[in-house]
Each structure stands twice: as structure tokens, then as C-alpha cells.
């Protein structure tokens, strides 16, 4: 039986798939929610439950952004989504709950992507960049110039965008930014622009290692 990791978006999928290469895990698939909402997560969990006897899994990992929520709030959100289908309450993040359907055992756990208890994937990326980033860093001046500050979430997303498009791409690549200035492309062809040994990734790697 395979393991399933559920993530919010395509960038999360690409990143987790890259990161998991260095971790010894069982065959797995990374499923994308295409945007996090209670409805989307609940329905995906409904669907996994519906098809379980046909395509069972051994472990299900739900990886979502911590954002600005405290862990208890994030956990309550996940538990609310799990209630209508698997009818289970997770006790904490990174702790597996043991379940069984028709004598097939399986486990579910969740992880909230964060840096120091807040943020999301982009927050991690800003912390693991390896190349000088004058273009992306200048966003701080832009931010200072604004009368109304953009949120940290939005700022981090913009930072990663500028890092990928201006600090680490050639002029030619910028002409086809949709192909060459994406996180997915960087994880295939420009992995040197990220430090995958950074301690900021240790917690996430530790969670992925649970899928052994």
C-alpha cells in the first residue's frame, strides 16, 4: 500500500516531492488540493474515504500552511474537516492517529508548514536561498515606501517570485517566465539556488521521515 501526502498547491507538491527524495519512505503520491478551504479539504478527505477499499493507503499526511494561526487553531481546522468522513480527531500535529476500515489499518497525521511558528512554503524558501538576491531584497524598500504594508504572506510570495525571475534567471529565461521562472523548474534545473541542508527544513523532513 502506498502513502498519500495531501498539499495545498502545485508548488507545495513540487517542493515535497523534491525534499522526500532524500528521505527513506514507502511509495507515495502527493495529491494537490488546488487551494485550501474547509470545503476543498473535506471533499478530498470524503473522496479518499470513499475510494479507500479500492485504493487503500497506509499513511495519510495532510500538509498545510501554518499561516498566522496558532497550532491549536490549525489543528481544529483539520479535525473539523476529518470529522465528517474519517470521524477522527488528531491529538496534535505530527502525531499519527490509528484507524481501520473493513480490517484494513491506516494512519493519518498533519503538519503545518512554518518558520518559527508562522508562515508557509514561501517563508521557508526565503530562508533557504543561496544566491545573492538584490532584486528580491529591494522589495523591503518598496514595502517601506508604502503607506499601507502588505501582509508577510504576500511579501514572501513576492520575494520568491522576484528571486526566481530576476535574481536567478537569465534574460532569456525571463522571456518565458511561466516555464523557467517557477519553483517547479528551479527544483528540476536550478537546485543550487536553494539550500536543502538548511536546519529550517529539519522539522518538515522529520515529518516526511514518518512515512517510512
Amino acid at each position, binding site marked *: 500500500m502506498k502513502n498519500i501526502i495531501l498539499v495545498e498547491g502545485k508548488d507545495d507538491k513540487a517542493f515535497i516531492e523534491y525534499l522526500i527524495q532524500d528521505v527513506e519512505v514507502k511509495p507515495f503520491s502527493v495529491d494537490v488540493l488546488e487551494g485550501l478551504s474547509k470545503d476543498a479539504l473535506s471533499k478530498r478527505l470524503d473522496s479518499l474515504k470513499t475510494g479507500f477499499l*479500492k485504493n487503500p493507503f497506509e499513511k495519510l499526511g495532510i500538509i498545510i500552511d501554518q499561516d498566522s494561526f496558532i497550532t491549536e487553531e490549525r489543528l481544529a481546522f483539520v479535525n473539523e474537516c476529518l470529522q465528517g468522513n474519517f470521524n477522527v480527531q488528531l491529538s496534535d500535529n505530527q502525531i499519527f492517529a490509528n484507524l481501520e476500515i473493513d*480490517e484494513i489499518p491506516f494512519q493519518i497525521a498533519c503538519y503545518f508548514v512554518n518558520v518559527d511558528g508562522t508562515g508557509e512554503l514561501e517563508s521557508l524558501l526565503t530562508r533557504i536561498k543561496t544566491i545573492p538576491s538584490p532584486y528580491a531584497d529591494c522589495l523591503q524598500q518598496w514595502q517601506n515606501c508604502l503607506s499601507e504594508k502588505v501582509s508577510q504572506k504576500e511579501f514572501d510570495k513576492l520575494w520568491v517570485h522576484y528571486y526566481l525571475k530576476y535574481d536567478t534567471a537569465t534574460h532569456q529565461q525571463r522571456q518565458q517566465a511561466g516555464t523557467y521562472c517557477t519553483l517547479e523548474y528551479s527544483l528540476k534545473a536550478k537546485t543550487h539556488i536553494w539550500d536543502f541542508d538548511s536546519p529550517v527544513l529539519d522539522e518538515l523532513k522529520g515529518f516526511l521521515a514518518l512515512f517510512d
Partner: protein
Amino acid sequence: MIQDISIENFRCFDKTEIKGFSRMNLITGKNNSGKTCLLEALYFAISENDKETIKIREIEFKELDKNQKNPLLFNEKDNKISFSIKFITDDNELKFVEKLYQFDDFWSWLSSENIINKRNLNLILDKDRQIPQRKNLVKLIDDAKINGYYEQILDAIQCIDEEILDITTYASYPNDLFIKKKGNSSYLTLSSFGDAMQKILRYISVFPLNGELFFYNSLGFLLIDEIENGIHYTAQKEVWQMLFKLCQHYNVQLFATTHSREMITAFEEVCEEFEGEGAYFEMARHAKTNQIIGIKHEIATLEYELETNTAIRGE
């Protein structure tokens, strides 16, 4: 209405229980997943005319070798076939029906003369002929008029489109039907009404037995294999809308199979219009026991699965 069915040792089924049928049931799955067998099991289980049942795969009773266990019916592992069905009546009463057939007495059971005419159970397995030949429809209308049940056919058609006032045939045009709609002084040919109308007429056309339409019974069953055949995808939603209306109006429970994702999508959309009337089942194998299972997908979940291109056809 059938709510649940349990099947043991029938054809590809060892032991299978499927729960939660609604009025309109769409069943899918890979080839040889048991879709058609489920229709046959339903047919067998609710049929009162068992001789007819043996013809379901176009094999005549007389052609069967009585010395052989019939693989068309029996699972190889056992001599007993068992069906158990949970019905819910129109008065919300639960009713359980069980049928057990044993190979030793199967032939005596089959040759029994105690045949009850059953107008209210219909199975369409002629996959290649789901769009009717025009001349057959002409005969249907002519027969209906001669034998006095034309009004019943018109009533069924008006259930789909209440603006249809009359359907008729003309000797000068032996291969066409003519339909008159409200507000039109002249008759239009059937072809101008599109594929969906022709498909529905196909369903209506096979059921006028002894001058009565199958829809006129208190509870009917309609079993259709590969319902998408012969119908362009643009007309599929309309076919479902028509079938939902007909089955609701005449208290018919439908079980249909399909391979088509477009047909499933159309079904899901129409289920939203007719809340609580539709159910979707996926035939697959249990990962641990390898038994055939019928997985019910809630309609809201099915909508999400179709949007996200999730595997829902037995994959």
C-alpha cells in the same frame, strides 16, 4: 424501491453487498468489474418470470445444456445462488426478499410453468441498438393507436415535453414519425427533435406489453446496460433529465451502467436538479479480499471528484 442487495455465488460475484440505492442509479467500473452482472443479478432477484431471465444474454433456455452447471449463472465455486434484497415501499415500510437457488433443483425450478407476466421489469442489454430504428417507432405508434394505448405513450412523451400535442404516422412516409407541438400548425419530423428524444422513445418503445406501458405499474424497474451508447455527449444531460422526469412520474427505479465520464458528469449535474433522486456506484475489487464491491459516491463528493479528475471508474 430497492435499497440494498446482497448477492452470493452469482456469476462473477462470490459475496457482495451493495447498499444505498436511490431511484436513479448509475453504475460504473472497468471492463469485467461486474457492472452488467449486477444488472443481471437485480433482474434475477426481482424477476417473477424466471424463464425470461435466462434469456438475458440472448441465450435461449432450450440451448442450455442441462447436464452442465451453467457458468452464465453460477459462480464456479458454489452450487447455490442467493439474492437478498431490501426494499422500501412507497409507504416507507421495509421489506426483505430472499431468493436461494441450488444447482440440484435449478432445472426443475427453471422448467416450472408457474410463469407470471411481468410488465414492470425491463432490461436493455442490446448495446448496439439504443437509438431505435425509425420504422420500429412508426410501428410503435401505429400499434398503440390500433390497440388503444396511444394516450399512454403520449402521456409519457408529454412528461418530457408538455408542449407536444400529437405524434402520428403517415402512409406516404413509412419511415418517419411526425410530432405536433403547441403553437405549430404543421407537424415536424422526429429527427428535428434531436437525439435525446429519439433515445427516450427507444426506451418507451420496448415496453408496451399487452397494451400497457411499463410505466403504468405501481413500481417498475428499468435496467439499461451502457446507457451512453448511441447518444452524442451534448444530448446526454437532456436524456438524463427526461429519464429522471419519466421515472419520477411513473414510479420507476432505474439502474444503468456506463463507461463514459461525460455521461457521469451529465448524471451528476441532473442529480443536483433532482435532489436525493440519484446515486452513483463504482464497481471495484476490495484491496484485501479481492471481492467485488460497489462503492457509493455521495453526489457532492462525485461533483468534486469530477472537477478534480479523480479516478472514479474502478481505476
